[in-house]
């Protein structure tokens, strides 16, 4: 593996950020709704 423990720890922080972003996107898709669809429903 390239890089030492410090590098690996920073990659893990990056992974954590990615996971949090993924969760936020999942939340938007699950609970949010395209506001324009309201018009279509009307």
């Amino acid at each position, binding site marked *: *593996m*390239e*890089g*030492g*423990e*410090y*590098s*690996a*720890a*920073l*990659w*893990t*922080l*990056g*992974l*954590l*950020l*990615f996971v*949090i*972003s*993924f969760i*936020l*996107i999942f*939340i*938007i898709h699950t*609970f*949010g*709704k*395209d*506001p*324009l669809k*309201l*018009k279509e429903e*009307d």
Partner: protein
Amino acid sequence: MINEKVTQKLVQVHRKETLSQSVITACGIAAALLPFLMAAFLLVKGSGTFWDFGHSITEFLFSAQWKPSDTMEGGGQVGAAMFISGSLVTCFLSLVFALPVSLAAAIYMSEMASPAVQRLIRPVVEMFTGIPSVIYGWVGLTVLVPFLRKIFPMPFGFSVLAASLVLAVMIFPVITTMAADAMLAVPKSWRDASYGLGANRWETIRNVILPAAQRGIFTGVVLGLARALGEALAVAMVIGQMKRFPTSLFMPASTMTTVIANDMGGPWKAGNTAQPCGPWACCCL
């Protein structure tokens, strides 16, 4: 003869269509695959802390000891709790600052402003999203930080408060435009029905527009939160980057993104934290 020429022409057109379709399909698949490839890459690189160096997820998430060893042998401590809490606190505070202003601006843009004013304000608010983060950071560094140091009892000016305010300004247009879009998408007939039942404008906004637009507003809030969470440069310029918990609004702290932005170039390979010492040593000599 003529038929043959027409047939050849049609075949050529069909081939071109097939080729362009293939290219477009390949681009679409590549665009869809890219996030998965990035996720896989991050998973492989990011899990090294746990698989190769034997740290636990609990230690990483909840420990405050951040002393990773810059060697292949490991043996350091990788508690990132102070950076995680720094990110969460600054994001939450920025949301607290930005949300009321954004909602008020969205209500004004969608419900109160005349069409001419709407045409003027909307591009101005949207323009904010296109401003590079380094500009926000620079203004924060040169204007906000000295201002905060002057009016609050803080030692440096670089603080969680400064970072939260800069982030609030950055996420304000995201939440405002999404919320305004959601409110504008509420059918006019719903407003008319509310007015017909005797409600005034504020009652209509509170009881009809906001509940109908709440999902769009929520989407804007989450998008703003995502932007705040991922912002590195502007935050790094004003937060002070002290490796400590964000226990005070007026003290420096660090976030996950600032730590990555600061240190990623250093320990690229084992032992590289020591490399910058070389040029510094030359300067000293």
